[in-house]
């Protein structure tokens, strides 16, 4: 099983504004770190030729979408928190609004499956309304792939 992750950021200003210029300049080097990170499988890209192009979508102009697939929870964690990406995260308040609700969700997908953005948004909605489950979880309440694979059908069979 592979791990899918959706991460949303709410911009403080339009992506092409001066306020966001430093962030936009970091997109190319940081995406390169992600693409080269051990365990990286796939990420949603707006453009193959322009590395600074952010994903276009219908969920609002100020919403930045990061959507990727990884081999394991550990490989994603190491990229997010144990690479130059950490320093960018540390500066997030300069560019993004603080959100009271969850903006990140993860779930397991069969290898070779690329989930859709619509499904990812549904998973996040599910996390918000129902709390963490094997179908939609966070680092703090993580489920491993076997738990996800065993549920719900196998859980019924074990009874």
């Amino acid at each position, binding site marked *: 099983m592979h791990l899918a992750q959706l991460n949303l950021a709410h911009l403080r200003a339009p992506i092409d504004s001066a306020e966001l210029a430093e962030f936009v300049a970091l997109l190319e080097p940081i995406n390169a770190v992600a693409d080269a990170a051990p365990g990286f499988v796939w990420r949603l890209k707006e453009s193959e030729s322009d590395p600074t192009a952010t994903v276009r979508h219908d969920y609002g102009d100020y919403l930045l979408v990061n959507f990727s697939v990884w081999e394991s929870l550990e490989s994603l964690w190491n990229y997010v*928190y*144990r690479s130059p990406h950490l320093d960018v995260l*540390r500066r997030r308040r300069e560019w993004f609004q603080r959100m009271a609700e969850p903006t990140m969700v993860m779930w397991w997908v069969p290898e070779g499956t690329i989930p859709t953005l619509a499904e990812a948004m549904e998973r996040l909605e599910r996390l918000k309304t129902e709390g963490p489950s094997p179908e939609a979880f966070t680092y703090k309440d993580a489920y491993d792939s076997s738990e996800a694979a065993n549920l719900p059908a196998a859980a019924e069979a074990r009874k």
Partner: protein
Amino acid sequence: MSTDDLDALALLNDPVRRSLYEAVAAGGGDVGRGEAAEAAGVSRTLAGHHLDKLVEAGLLESGFRAPAKKGPGSGRPAKVYRRARGERSVSLPPRDYVTLASVLAGVVDLLGAEEQAEQAARGAGERIGARHAGEPVERVLGERGYEPYEEGGLLRLRNCPFHVLAVEEPLLVCSMNLALCQGLLRGLGEDPGRARLDPRPGECCVALSKTNGD
């Protein structure tokens, strides 16, 4: 506190086992029996015996390293040791600061008080540094559990002393750790700018440039 933890740690009371454990830990990865034996100044046979005891107690993990040469005559794979991932702590009488720290980290998150938390960490670092003014930063960080070592002109830190919380709240804890290290440098009378984030898997997120002006 569990009896297992106490039993495991009691094993380190033996000076040979202690120096073997330290040799493996300082290696930062897979360490062969011969290397550990040499560092501890004992025979390979004695080292093997004690290393296996440390594995049994869960303080080390063992594995095999394929020989450099492939094919017939290259010999068996060498047994190697590395520090076990889990952590052991014993407190008498029992104390539980990790739960409290975790709750407080949750409060910082609820309040959005990351900046204030970093400021407080910087202040705490300065006070620690001031108590050790004039001492080399390597020693002060070493005494605080960071396990410094030199690599590529940097002073890297092998161990994260806040590991459990850093896994739970990486952004907050790593930011506070950086502020703490910068404060500590200032307290020691050194340039706080020597400490910066340079995270890589399995280590502390902070690295120090070697001297001022680097």
